[in-house]
């Protein structure tokens, strides 16, 4: 495993960006600390260094989801709100996040990594430690369930 500091050097900015998008600027700091402390805790037992970015982003998403769970009722700040007026308000992010948070862990992570971090199936698979086909299946099941929950 490379020295943990290299993970910070290479991915801290991106992880912070993702968290700001997910929980807002004010709360991102806490989630960032939780993310990297969890990563540090697990790091010596990790046996695959091929996708550390995906691994970190998975943890970050899990922390964002935990955060939304405990702060379920608070309004959620969103990074870069669109400047254009919209007629139909977008569905509130926290409803989606709450629903995502209620998914079983694999589906939840697959959805977050696909739509939150824009990772391809192969990288999701590496992050989850499963085959790309299994990752695709988790994603598919997750989306199906979200559609049903949010309908």
């Amino acid at each position, binding site marked *: *495993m*490379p*020295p*943990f*500091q290299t993970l*910070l050097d290479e991915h*801290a*900015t991106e992880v*912070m960006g993702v968290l700001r998008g997910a929980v807002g600027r004010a709360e991102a*700091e806490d989630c*960032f*600390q939780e993310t*990297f*402390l969890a990563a*540090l*805790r697990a*790091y*010596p037992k990790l046996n695959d260094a091929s996708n550390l970015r995906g691994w970190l982003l998975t943890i970050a998403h899990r922390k964002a989801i935990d955060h939304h769970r405990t702060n379920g009722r608070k309004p959620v700040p969103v990074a870069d709100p669109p400047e254009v007026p919209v007629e139909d308000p977008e569905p509130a992010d926290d409803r989606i996040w709450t629903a995502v948070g209620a998914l079983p862990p694999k589906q939840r992570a697959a959805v977050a990594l696909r739509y939150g971090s824009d990772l391809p199936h192969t990288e999701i698979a590496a992050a989850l430690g499963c085959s790309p086909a299994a990752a695709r299946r988790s994603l598919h099941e997750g989306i199906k369930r979200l559609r049903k929950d949010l309908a």
Partner: protein
Amino acid sequence: MKATLRRLAERAGAEGLLDVAYASVDSPFGPLLLAATPRGLVRVNLPNYDAEEALEELAAKVSPRVLEAPAKFERARRELDLYFEGKLTEFDLPIDWQLTRGFRGKVQRAIKRIPYGQTRTYAEMARGAGNERAVRAAGTACGSNPIPIVVPCHRVLRSGGGLGGYGGGLAMKEDLLRLEGAL
């Protein structure tokens, strides 16, 4: 981001997740990389040796939980500054000896006890470690010292007055001995 990372290193330390802290410290010879475990100073990397490589070695041999944490080295930094100014003759820093074992470990612990401004020969170090014929091994023990300067392997010379070798280069060894008034 700087404050965030400083906070992370602090929290990691408080939660027992910071196995190897490191920082770069200026010296008249160039930047020194210092690394410490919760037990003490475990590595001093001299300027002529690649710092990245030193960190990778620490990750492999001690723990991959390696984080930059300059706040942990305030005392070491102060002592080294004073030493290079000729105002400190004995380091008072806890040492973690885990990177050195066996005969080498014995020799390196003995090197730590050579007083400021004095020198010993490789042969004397071998004898002190209980094997007077192991002069070459004593030389290797000096050469593989993971904590140079603080464990003053520059004070060990060849019998007959030759300087012997030094990981940081012979010029550095000479400068250190001159600083201490031993040359």
